[in-house]
């Protein structure tokens, strides 16, 4: 028995280090990256530039936090790019063309995204379709509607005041940053302090065991898609407010970034593991890299190559270390 105790203690030690590293690796890398950039690039350490990074990262971070829930339950939502386009174009259409007040238009587009989330969830969880396929199909259908509604043209002319959401400041602090942290804190409390929040980890960690334990696995699975769609629509409104125009192509290149951010933040693609603040750091990390590449005048296609290499690296690490 004595021996058994000893064995367990050594196990905890190595396990502790390992899980400490895999949990906080991204934070360590992030600090290292920022430190190096601060020391070597004068343009980078300009406070204006730093705030700019956070501002740009904010809405992508919010969308990534949505995707986080879906990936946490072991699924994947590919439809976010066209949800972004949908929210952007319909919001602009409702406000500019139909003259609805902003608050009502916001309500309507969020409601629309909830419906999309439910469809994604039902197809995946109850219809037992692979989430990759189900959401890919939904993505294309929504994209179709976006085109049908707008004819592919942007709708500009949103009221100036709406610009505050994406470009406003509270004192010296950009408003998007405040919004991102408020949402992150709420979701942090939700995932760590509530029983429903914990169910996402249980379902993603072991679907069968959760079911046998009496957790409503279907509800949790669908809810993940709904949370994802709602957070995506909040992010989409923020992105729209920057240009004051509805644009169906607004999210076309974001899916890749969002996936990178979620995995970069330490979320396991196999489900069951991840932290909200990991996602936030992941978003900042990717934005720093983009920013540095812009400062170094690296052409956009090369930026794609670099981001691609980052995603491959992170997923390789994920698939080879987090298996049991």
């Amino acid at each position, binding site marked *: 028995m004595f021996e058994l105790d000893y064995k*367990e203690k050594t196990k905890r030690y190595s396990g502790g280090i390992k899980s400490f590293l895999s949990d906080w690796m991204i934070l360590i890398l992030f600090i290292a990256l920022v430190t190096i950039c601060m020391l070597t690039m004068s343009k980078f350490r300009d406070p204006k530039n730093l705030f700019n990074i956070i501002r740009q990262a904010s809405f992508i971070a919010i969308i990534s936090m949505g995707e986080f829930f879906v990936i946490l339950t072991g699924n994947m939502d590919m439809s976010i790019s066209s949800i972004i386009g949908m929210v952007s174009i319909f919001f602009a259409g409702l406000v500019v063309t139909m003259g609805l007040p902003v608050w009502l238009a916001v309500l309507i587009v969020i409601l629309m995204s909830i419906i999309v989330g439910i469809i994604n969830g039902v197809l995946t969880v109850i219809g037992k379709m692979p989430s990759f396929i189900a959401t890919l199909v939904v993505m294309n259908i929504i994209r179709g509607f976006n085109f049908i509604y707008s004819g592919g043209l942007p709708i500009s002319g949103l009221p100036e005041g709406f610009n505050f959401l994406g470009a406003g400041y509270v004192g010296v602090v950009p408003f998007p940053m405040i919004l991102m942290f408020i949402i992150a804190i709420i979701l942090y409390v939700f995932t760590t302090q509530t029983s429903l929040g914990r169910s996402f*980890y249980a379902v993603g960690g072991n679907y069968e*065991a959760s079911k*046998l*334990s009496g957790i409503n696995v279907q509800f949790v699975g669908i809810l993940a898609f709904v949370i994802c769609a709602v957070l995506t629509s909040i992010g989409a409104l923020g992105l729209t407010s920057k240009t004051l125009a509805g644009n169906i192509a607004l999210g076309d290149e974001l899916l890749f970034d969002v996936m990178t951010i979620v995995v970069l933040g330490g979320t396991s693609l196999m489900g069951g593991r991840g932290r909200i603040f990991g996602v936030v750091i992941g978003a900042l990390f990717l934005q720093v890299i983009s920013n540095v590449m812009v400062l170094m005048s690296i052409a956009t296609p090369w930026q794609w190559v670099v981001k691609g290499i980052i995603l491959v690296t992170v997923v390789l690490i994920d698939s080879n270390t987090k298996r049991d």
Partner: protein
Amino acid sequence: MDSKVLEMRNISKSFPGVKALDDVSFDLKAGEVHALVGENGAGKSTLMKVLAGIYSKDSGAILINGNEVKIESVRDAQRLGIVMIHQELNLMNHLTVAENIFIGREYKKKFPLFLDAGKQIKKTREIFSELNIDIDPTVKVGKLTVAKQQMVEIAKALSYDSKILIMDEPTASLTDSEIEDLFRIVRTLKEEGRSIIYISHRLEELKIISDRITVMRDGRYIDTVKTEEADIDDVIKMMVGREIFVKKQEPFKNEDAPVALKVENLSAGRMVKNVSFHVRKGEILGFAGLMGAGRTEVARAIFAAENYESGDIYINGRKVKIKTPNDAVKAGIAYLSEDRRRYGLALGMNVDENISMANMKKFSKLLFIDFKKSFTNSQMQREKLDIRTPSLKQRTKFLSGGNQQKVVLAKWLTRDSEIIIFDEPTRGIDVGAKNEIYKLLNNLAQQGKAIIVISSELPEIIRTCHRVLVMCEGRITGELIGDEIDQNTIMQYAIKRDINNGRLSS
């Protein structure tokens, strides 16, 4: 006729923590059917997998026709004419019979290298007519019965021009008439001078089909006997081994305790046939039998993890409908699967989270988790069950098997389960921790829980159970109480044979 086509000399093989084969020797003559028998885990399959190139041996030598050979892969074995037909058939259901037989080495036309389907079908027909089998080579394998699929596997093996065929439990899922067909084919193969190694639990069959029987136990070679001179009781004794002294469970004192769970005429699929039993409060009921006897399937049917076709379930005398695992949980049944990692634990989550997983409602205030309450309970369970973990925050994947098992148990005890089914409770658990689990079983029984233990380890059954049901091929074949429980008697019931006949019936 007496030339040895195969000799395996002093084969040893270890897996981490287990010596699976310890200095085992085995030989095979031309045109012989040599049966290999032994309990679960005796090492039969491991030995055959070494021969078929699936495992590599640690030491020892393999000789084919007197020459030492190297077998490092399945391809090596195939080249030497050795093919294993696994219990779970490895066929692709969506491909035709001929395509399956020639998969990976299809006949091609000289130009432009397209598949020569015609030749494949012709070759398949040739093999079938040689074996006197009537199967259409162009039909999809998925449409065939299991028996016919097996024949396709045999034909596939022959298409490699195999001299040595290894059949692992070939009759496990066949009906009587299908078995006759199989035996006819085996005899044809024999006449052609091919040799067959035949693994089976059904001693009665061996009398009909085999020439010699080799018994293995605990990874060791025990003895080889000529089938015609073999006595079934001797074979069983050799399989079970010397009577190791096992401390028996004390007799069940509370014979009048209320019946906690009663199952009547439960049938589910092929594996559970008309099973009836009951278990009283405070009683530990064992389910013994060989692998594939249907014990786990009974548990899963009760728990509604698998659909059952018919049968009634009574809990505390009241008939209940259990349609989902959730119903079973609510009725107070807990099922601790042999596959803890798959069905019991979320390995990435910590001890406390796992314990409270089935009890979220109990530990929530409004929507928020009452960490204190959950922790207090987990701490109490940790002390009660002696869960050894550096902290309740430890992820369960870092715990030893025994402690993982205790965490799953803690989850169900928190849920106030009154009927607890343990499926292979000590699988993958080291010896010291096993004793603790046994003690725990006794404690739970003394607290009035009704316990069902499914185990393939006979000493475990003898040590823990007040009463034992033995299953064979989906049916309960025997019930043993108190002094009747011993390894030999359990084995007698576990093996399909004519019980009235002391010798192997033919």
